[in-house]
Every structure is written in C-alpha cells, then in structure tokens.
C-alpha cells in the first residue's frame, strides 16, 4: 500500500502541475480597479474680504541730482512733433516718475481674475503713453496710433513671445496680451529709435506706476505680510517688506540713488 501510494505521488504532482499551468491563463483576469483620477484641486485661496482690505501708498525719490535728460533728434520723421527729451529718468525735484511698484511676494496661492477692460497704450507725438505700463497676465493691451506716421510695435521679451507689427496712421487698434509674468519688458518702434516703453506683466492687480510727483497707491490689499518691489528701467529693483493690518493705509516710501548710471 505504502509503496503504491508513493508511486502515485509524482503522477499526482504532474497532474497538479498541469492543472496549475492550465489555470495560469484564467487567473488574474479580474482587473485591479482604479479609482477615477481626482482632478487636481484648485489651490484654495483665502477669499478677500472687502471689509478688511487696506492699501499701500507712498512716494519714490531720486537720491542725488537727476542726470540731464538727453535730447532726442526727431528730425528724421517730419510727422514727429513733440517733447524731445528722453524719458529714461524723469525726476521733478527729486520725485521719481515711471517706477513700477508691485506686490512681488506675500499673496500666496491667490489667483485673480483678469480684468475684462483693456489697458491702453497710445502712440502720439512719436512717444508712448504711458512710458511704463502695468498689465495683468492675459489682460488685453490695446495699442493705438494717433500719429500721422506709421509705427511698429516691437516688444523684445525674455519670457513671452516676441512679435513686431506695423501700425499705419488711422489703423485699427492692435490688441495683444502677454501670457507670462515679466517685469520691464522693453517695447520699441524700429522706425523711431527713441521710442521706447516698458510693459510690466504681473499676476495680481496690486501694482502701480509712480506719477510725475513720484506718488503711487496700491488699493484693495488684503491684510498680510508683503514684499513690495520698486522697479526702474535704469536704476534697477529695490524691495521693501510691508505688513498691512486690516483696513490699514500703509505708507511705503523708497528712494533710488542717482549714481550708477
């Protein structure tokens, strides 16, 4: 008995194996169910409570004597008539104009709706108005030509797409936008080499450009700790830490050294 049982063993094993091998195909046909991929949740931003918002304002000064603005020779185009001083550093009694002021850091993951209204860039007297422009990423920039001559608008960005379009007199406004954040993006007109301006593309609506008195104001800021950047086309960037308490109107002045030009 014992022996015969033993003899059967390998046979049994063989059969078992064959069975196993046969099963192999059928096994594991059930698929591991996968949970539907959850869409990445939009970063939850603390909503801005209009009742608590504060503001930052101030004045930007030029420390030291402003260099004498260089003269522009507009004689190459008889259609160009206007002030003929370069706008590189515009400073009236030490108040520095054309400084772009924006909240560089401190807004966290908040996202902001892009305003529907376009920002206008006007060409008249063979000059850009304004000389320094702030715009939100994606917001329309409407470019007009009020001159009796042809201009071309040629931004030379680092991080946005470059383009260069011609705009004859009385042509319809050109509408463009910039997708990515970029500070002091130079824009020029190839036909009038003195025509230069700077577009600042930011992601928040909290920005301003200093006027001829060097003044600026950023309104509607939710309370928080911010880094405010002051950027000038030639004098570079300076930053300041500012804490805004609810409903507070904070003052943040800044000054640039006139040297280093």
């Amino acid at each position, binding site marked *: 008995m*014992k*022996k015969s049982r*033993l*003899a059967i*063993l*390998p046979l049994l*094993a*063989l059969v078992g*194996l064959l069975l196993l*091998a046969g099963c192999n*195909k059928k096994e*594991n046909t059930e*698929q*591991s*169910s*996968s949970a*539907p*991929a959850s869409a990445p949740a939009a970063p939850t931003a603390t909503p801005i409570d209009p009742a608590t918002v504060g503001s930052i304002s101030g004045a930007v000064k030029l420390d030291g004597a402003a260099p004498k603005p260089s003269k522009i020779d507009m004689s*190459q*185009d*008889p*259609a160009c008539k206007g002030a003929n001083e370069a706008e590189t550093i515009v400073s009236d009694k030490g108040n520095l104009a054309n400084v772009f002021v924006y909240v560089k850091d401190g807004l966290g993951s908040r996202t902001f709706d892009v305003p529907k209204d376009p920002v206008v860039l006007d060409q008249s007297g063979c000059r850009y108005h304004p000389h320094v422009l702030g715009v939100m990423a994606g917001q329309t920039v409407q470019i007009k030509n009020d001159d*009796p*001559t*042809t201009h*071309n*608008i*040629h931004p*030379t960005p*680092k991080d946005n797409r*470059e*383009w*260069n*379009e*011609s*705009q*004859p*007199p*009385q*042509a319809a406004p*050109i509408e463009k936008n910039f997708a990515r954040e970029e500070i002091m993006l*130079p824009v*020029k007109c*190839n*036909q009038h*080499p003195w025509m*230069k301006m700077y577009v600042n593309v930011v992601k928040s609506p909290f920005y301003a450009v200093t006027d001829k008195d060097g003044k600026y104001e950023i309104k509607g800021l939710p309370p928080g700790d911010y880094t405010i950047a002051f950027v000038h086309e030639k004098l570079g960037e300076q930053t300041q830490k500012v804490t805004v308490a609810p409903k507070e109107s904070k003052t943040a002045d800044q000054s640039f050294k006139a040297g280093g030009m």
Partner: protein
Amino acid sequence: MPDKPVPDNDPIVTKSYAAHYMIAVTLLTASLLWALWDEAFGMRPWKAYQHEWKQRYTAFLKSASSKSDVSQKEVEGSSDYQKLKQDLDQATQQATPHVRDLQKQIGDLSAKILAVQSVFTDRRAYVNALTYQIETNPSSKQSIQKDLDKYKAQTATVEYPDGSKQPYNFEQLEETYNSLKDQRAKLNAELGDTLKPVTQAKAALDEYVNDHMVDLTPAQIVGLEKKTEDLDPSIQQINVAEANIVDRCESCHMGAREPVKLTAASMSEKGAKAPDDFAKAFVSHPNPALLQVHDPDKFGCSPCHQGNGRATTSIEKAHGNYEHWLWPLYTKQNLEAGCQTCHAADMMLVSGDVGWTISKGKDLFRQRGCMGCHRYEGYDKEPEELQSLNQQIKQLEGERRDNTKQSAYLMKRADAAESNDEANKLNDEAVGLRVANSKIDGRLQQIDFRAHSLMQDAKKVGPNLKDARLKLNKNWIPVWLKKPSEFRPGTKMPNFRLTDAQIQAISAYIWQSGFTDSLPHQKPGNADHGKELFETRGCLACHSIGEGDDLQGGTFSANLTRVGEKANYDYLVRWIHNARERTRPYCPYEKKDIGPEDYAKKNLPYVFDLAHSKCPNDGHELQVQNMTVMPSLRLSVEDAQDIATYLLTQKKQEPSTYADASFMDDPKLKDEGQKWIRHYGCAGCHEISGMEDEGRIGTELTFEGSKPIERLDFALFTEGAERGKEPITNPEDLARLPEGPAKAPWYDHKGFFEHKLAEPEIYDKGMVKSETEALRMPNLHLAKDQVQALTTFLLGSQESGLPANYQYRPQDTRRDIQEGWWIVTKYNCVGCHQFFPGQDSSLMKMKKYQDADWKEQLPPKLYTEGARVNPEWLRRFLANPSLSDTDTNRNGVRAYLKVRMPTFSLSDDEQRKLVRFFQALSQQPLPYIPQSVPTLTSKETEMARSLFSSTAAPCLKCHATGDAQHDAHATAPNFLLAKERLKPDWVERWITDPQAISPGTSMPSGLFNHVNGQWVFAGPTPPSFQGYTQDHTKLLVDYIFQLTPEEQRRVASSMGRSTASNSAPASKKPSVGATRHALPHSGASAGGSR
C-alpha cells in the same frame, strides 16, 4: 541445487526500502517540478513581466479612458465643435428628404431590375447558345439563324413587383434592362452628390476631434484595452534577417511602442512608494519622434542601445551586463553613443540638434585637437589626401619622364628603321607617348587645383610655432609649457607633465627653429577704440575675455584675458589684420619653407598669396596661409593697431616680470628638444620647422569602442576596477569624473575612457617607467560634461556589424547638409548665426546683446537662407562678404551692423559645399534658375512707387539707400541689392510675414492683409489702386527688383530725405556705410558721399 532455507534476516525481504524510495522519489519529483518550473518560469522571467503588464496597463487605460471621456466632452463643448456639429446636422437635415426619396427610388428600381433580370438572363443564355452554334456550324448557319430570329421575336412576360405584367420581345427586354440599370446608376450618383456635404461635414468633425484631443480618443483606448486583454504571454521579437538583428527586448519592455506616454510613476502599483522594476520596464520610449524616424521593425533596439537582444533568461543577460558579452547596454549618460553606429559621418545628427551629447563629443574631439595624435576616420582628412596627392604627383612625373625618354628612343629607332612601315609604326608609338604625357599634364593640373583647395582647407588646432620668435615673449614660453591651464583656464593646449629639462629643451628647439624674418613696425593704436571694436566687431563670437563671472564671449577660441603678457605688438597687429598672412610659404613637396632668396633666384617678386601659390622652384602648390581658422575681419591697419593696443593691456603681470629664459639660445639643447617634440607629437597640432611630416603618435580611435576589454590597458588597476576602487586621488582630476569617484565596479570601456580622460597618466600609477616609456597622453583639463561627451563618442566608435545600407551616407541633398555642417562647425559659424530656432549663437548669449537696441545689431538668422538668396550670389558673398574689391572695410549687405561678416578664405570646394548646404537646408533645387520678374508698365510703376513711398509703408525709413546721412540711421539692407541677391518668391513671403521667417526682426509684420484671396496693403492705399485685383505684394516685389539707383534717389528725395548719393552699394562701387559714422576712428580712408 539444494534448497537453501531463506535466511531470517534476508535484507531483501526483511529490510524496508521505503525510506530510500521515498527520498529518491522526492528528489525526482522535486527535480521534475524544478525542471517544469524552470521551463515555464525560471527561464522565462518575461512571463512575469507580461503578466504584470496586462494588469497595470489595463488599469492605466481605465483611468486614461475616463480622462479621455472628459477631454472628449471638453472638445465637444467647444464652440468650434458645436459649429461643425451644427453644420453636420444641418447638412444631414437638408439632405435627408432627398436622400430618402432617392433611396426609395433606387429600391423600387432594383426590384424592377431584378424582375426583368430573371427573364432576361434566361433568354440571353438561349440566344448566346444559338449564336455559338451559328459560329461553330457554318453548314447549318442559316437554319439556326432562322430559329434565332424567331426566338428573338417571341415575347416573354415580365411580372413587375407591383403586380403589373408586361410582354417584351428580346430586343425590348434588353433595352428595358439596360435603361433600368442606367437609371439606377444615375440615381446612385445623385445620392452620392446629395450626401457629399454630409460626408464632408462628418469628416471635418472627426478631424476636429482628432486634432483637439490631447490624448487618445475613448474609441482608441477601448481598442488598446481589447488588445491588452487578448495578449497571450509570448516572446515579443523583432527579427531583421537582413541586418542579423534579433531583439526580444519588448518581451519585457511591453510599453516601448504604445501610443500613450507611460512613465514609471504611471505604471507603478497603486500606493507604491517608488516605481519597481516592472514599472521601470514598462515605460514608453521617451522619444517617440526618434522611433518614427528609426522604425524598430527595421532597426530593432540593440543597434542603438546595445545589450544582448536575443537573451531572455535574465535582466543581466538581456542587458548584456555580463562577462561574456562585449556590448553591454549603454548607460543613460552615454546613451547617444548608439547614434554613432550609423551616424559616424555626421557632425550634427539632425539639422535642429541642440544639446546632444554625442555631437558635443564629436566637436570636442575636433576642436580640442584629439585628432592631432589620434587618427579617426573622417576627421582631419586633408593632410592624408594631400599626402596621397603628393604620391600621385611623384608617380605621374615619373611616368612622364619615362615616356619622354621612351619616345625619344623610339624616334631615334624610327629614323634608323629599315622600312618606312616600321619607321611609321615607331613614330606612331612615340606620338602616342607624347599625347599620353599631355594627358598627364592635364591630370597634374587638376591635382594641383585640388591640392590648392586642400591646402586652404587643412587647419591645425594650435598656432604656427615657426612664428614663435616673432610672436611671443620669449620668457613666457617655459612658463606656458609648465602648465598651460594655469595661465589660461580652458585653453585647448593640454598639460603634458613635462620636466623642467624637457621644457627647456622643447622651448629651445621652438625658439631656435623659428623664423627670424623682420616684421613691419606698427604705430601704437588707441586702446579705447580698440576695446570698442573688439567688443562689437564680432571677436567675441569665438574668443572670450574676462574670468569667472565676468567672462564674456564664445568658448571656440582662446580666452584673451592675459594675452598682454605673451604677445608681441607688431605680430599681433598683423595677426588681427589678417591671421592667415604667413611669414614664409611652405612647400610640402620640397618640405621646405620658401624665402625671398628662392624667388630671387628665379627673378620673381617675393609675393605669395592664394593667387600666387606656386613654388618658384618646382611650380607645386605652396602653403601660403597660416593654417588657422581665424578669418580676416577686413579691418583697416589702424583698426587692427587699436585692437592690438587694447589687447596688450590685458594682463595680470608685466611681461618683463617673467624670469629670464636665455637657455633657449643654447644650441646644445636643440637636438634634445626635437626629440621631445617628436615624442610628444607636438606637430600634430602645431606647425614646427622640420617636423611638418610627423605622423600621429597616438592610437587610431575609429573603432576604439569595440576593442576587447583585455586590450584596454588598465595596468595595475584591473582588479581595483573590478572591485570598484577609485585610483584617482588628485581632487582636480576627480572632479572631472562625470559620476564622481567610483562607487561600483568600473572594469569596462566606459570606466576606462572616463578615467583616462580625467587623468591620462592614471594607468602609470604605481609603475616604474622611464621618461620615454611613461604614458604620453596629456591632461586635457576637461570638465565633467566634456568627459562624458567624449566617453560617449568613444563608446560609440565601433565597427558596426550592420549592413552598409544602415549607415547614414545619403547621396541626395541630405549629403549636402551632412557635408555643410562639417564646415559650419569648423569655422564656428554658429558663434554668430542661428541656423534653426533654439540654437543660440555665442553673441546672443552675451550680456550686451540682451539689450533691445543691441539685439538689432545681432548677425542675421539663417533659418531660410537657401530660400532667401540666389546661390550664385551667396557663393560670391562667402568668397568676399564686402562685395567689393576695393572698399573692403565694411559689410557688403548689412553695412549698418557693427559686427562684421569676416572673410574666411574658403576654398572653392568649401564655397561650393556651403552653398549646396544652404540650398539643401531650405529644400531649394540646384542649379537655381531665377524667376523672371515682369517689367512693370508705367502705370504699375506709378502705383508701386506710391505704395513704396507711402507714409503707411515707409520702406526707406529703415532700409539703406547709399546716402551717408540717411544710412547713419538705417537698420536694413539697400533695396538695390535685391535684384542680384534675393529670390523674388521669398521676398514676397518676407514682406507678408517677416516675423515668421526671422522672429524678432526689425521688419514688422502686418503690412499686408489677405483679403478674399488677394494680398492687400494694410494701410490706406493710394487712389490708383482702385479696382486693382492683383496682389499688392507682388507689385511691390516686382518694383523692388527693377529699382534703379536713380529711381530710389527720386523717391527718397520726394519723401523729404536728403539727396542720396549716386553710388549703388552693389559690387565694386564703393559706398559709405553707417559703420563709419558710428565709429569715428575707423579707417581714415574715404568718407562722405561722392
């Protein structure tokens, strides 16, 4: 035999063997089981992979399909889709009633046809049978014909589906049948026409969905799921008999060719922390575009990746990572070594290749002078070809001599011949030999032309040391030789580990063998102006200046930060003015530098240049140029003086502070020096007197990657390498190892090359060797990435087992591209120009050119150069970029650029290759047959002129006119060049959208609008354009192509410009460019308008 009683303790009966059997059976069973298991799984690890693959891929597809559904919904939600959908619905709606009607008619007709057909075919069969009888039985023809007519006249009744009956005779029946069929065909065609808008709208809709789905459509995913479900475990094999490729890689790498992007993360099991082996194996090929070009069904996997494609028993075996396999899988760092298998002849792998390691390796091999010591097929071909030409010359001259002798002998015999017949025969033979000699002369002439080209093309990586005495601060030489990278980090000159005695001997030989000719004395220049020129003329496209963070410029040529310590002013001025200017020509035939004395002997003036390149002694080609790639910027001597003056201010210590090295004049050192120069192969990179024909001292590297590992000499480190021990201790050299000090065994090709490149003398470590036995390879002081690139290049340098047609050796225009890149990289054209988007030139990367105004000063982009310019013009331009024989200190086309297109003294051969290269890059046919430009009528001319000068298209505001005052502000070429230079169709494309051709150009887009199939000027059009239906662009281009200087002047003055000069900028007529005004110091010659 007596019966023996069975012993009580008979072992057979009494002892149980059950245990033995048990053990034996268990063992047998176990081995059987093992054998079965091994057969099914052990030897087939890929089965486990395929099993996992099924599960994971199905899971992946499930999640992908839900995403796909979402994105399809998104696509379907878009307004464009809705519009297309609406179009489809509308088309369907419009078509439906008619379609239904048609379909009903067709159905009815079909039924009728069927009814007629059943009767008709029956009767036709009978008619055919009778006809056959008539044909085969001529005897009874008439009677059968009668029967046939009778039969045809009989009527048969057709019962239509509507129940009506109609009798027809045979002819009527046939007619009815055919007409019914005709009707049906017409209706079917009509149905097709009616459905056409519907099918079109449907196709548009499908196309839209396919175009806008980022991933696969749900339907495609379902297909993939089905395919995966049906997968039976089996070996997946690519078998290319022609190339002997059998690759079973896809038995495990199941995802390689899937049409979705599979990453290790996406193929990991849910909740897995890190991707396991399965997940890593299942990723899709990271570069599907590459697979598209290299179809795996033709190329397999292993020709690119190596490894053992046939092995399936383990990962190590399959990847070839075992002792007995010579071609282990390339590691990630050296992946591109595989490209070399077929692309050894390419300098650039693809036209559009940026940041490829293998291309960098090739470039380093060439630029660092590796080929000075190591032969490598395809690199530095000119000297070899020159040598073979010299041999041919010798052979041909010998033949000619023999022929002359033989023919003289024959003629002599002819004169003394006994019969006229014999004399004539001998004379004929003599004449034949003389004709043969004239053929040899022609052949020699061609060889000379070729040698002339080759001599121009042949370059040396290092400077000509025959000029050492004229050029260098004597005391600086030994300091330099001690450790070149100490004086100039990043220099091409490697560190040779020379002893002081060797340095003294070598410098003595160089010094004493150098030319002693005198150089013209140069006046001192203006360093400030020199600095301005140096920074703007384009020197920095190749050279760099400054150190560390202040370093500016390209890495192609020397860093000039300390050039003031070593250079001689008079020589430097000549060098900057024209680096190719040689002190004495060299005759490779005589192996001799030719001097004024040789010319004087033949009463010839001592003039040698490309036009006077024949040796006065024997008429063979001379080397009349310095063998440098440095071009001439066509500067005035004054400008060259200014730049040299500026450069000499670049120093960290005074040249006079170098220790005295008067030992260099010791004649006893000379022989010793020559010995060491020969030993170290200095002549591989430098021209050195008396060493011109030295061969390469290193081993050939063409197939270095396929050398058996035993033939790579690890010296004392074989064992250490196998155990993963790091022999390099010098921290400087350790930092060169791409993956840092060894952490794993490195006894392989990769390890050998990396260590050799990081510290070439490493394999001498621990050995006792004499000075002459020590390894000669110098330390090239490479950076990590450079070692990696060169290692990749060497690993790929293998003797390919693939058939010849796998090698990328195209014979069509792609060959022109291949050949062109060798020249483009040779002269560093990419230092200034962009050939395709994404490839940044050295100048573009400089700080200066980040400014918007300086950006306009960048050299032109050459994206579409072949489509832009007339190839014959391009050849002339490449030969002389000033486009003038007399007024050369300027750019011929873009006079307004401060940066200068240099004269490279390209040989005819290289000019030809470059022109073909540009034409091929832009898919332009050669030879070029210019389009004819129609002559405009006076009315058209008037219209075009009004457009040309309108305020809305102020062309002449930016484009140069040749008028000095105007051109001071010009930023674009003169229109008068267009006719000879440009292709009219390109100009038309250019003026409609220049930004698409050269992004960032000063020329604005939007000048013309495409309205109803016509290109119309965007600004207010002059009244004469009323009713003009042709393209405004075409009119303007035609006008530009027939613009005359007079016309341009008239237009310019009518636009309120100052009067233009009479001169056109076209060839030969000198004109005044903007550069003169911008640069007050430049050439004092000619100024102002004429």
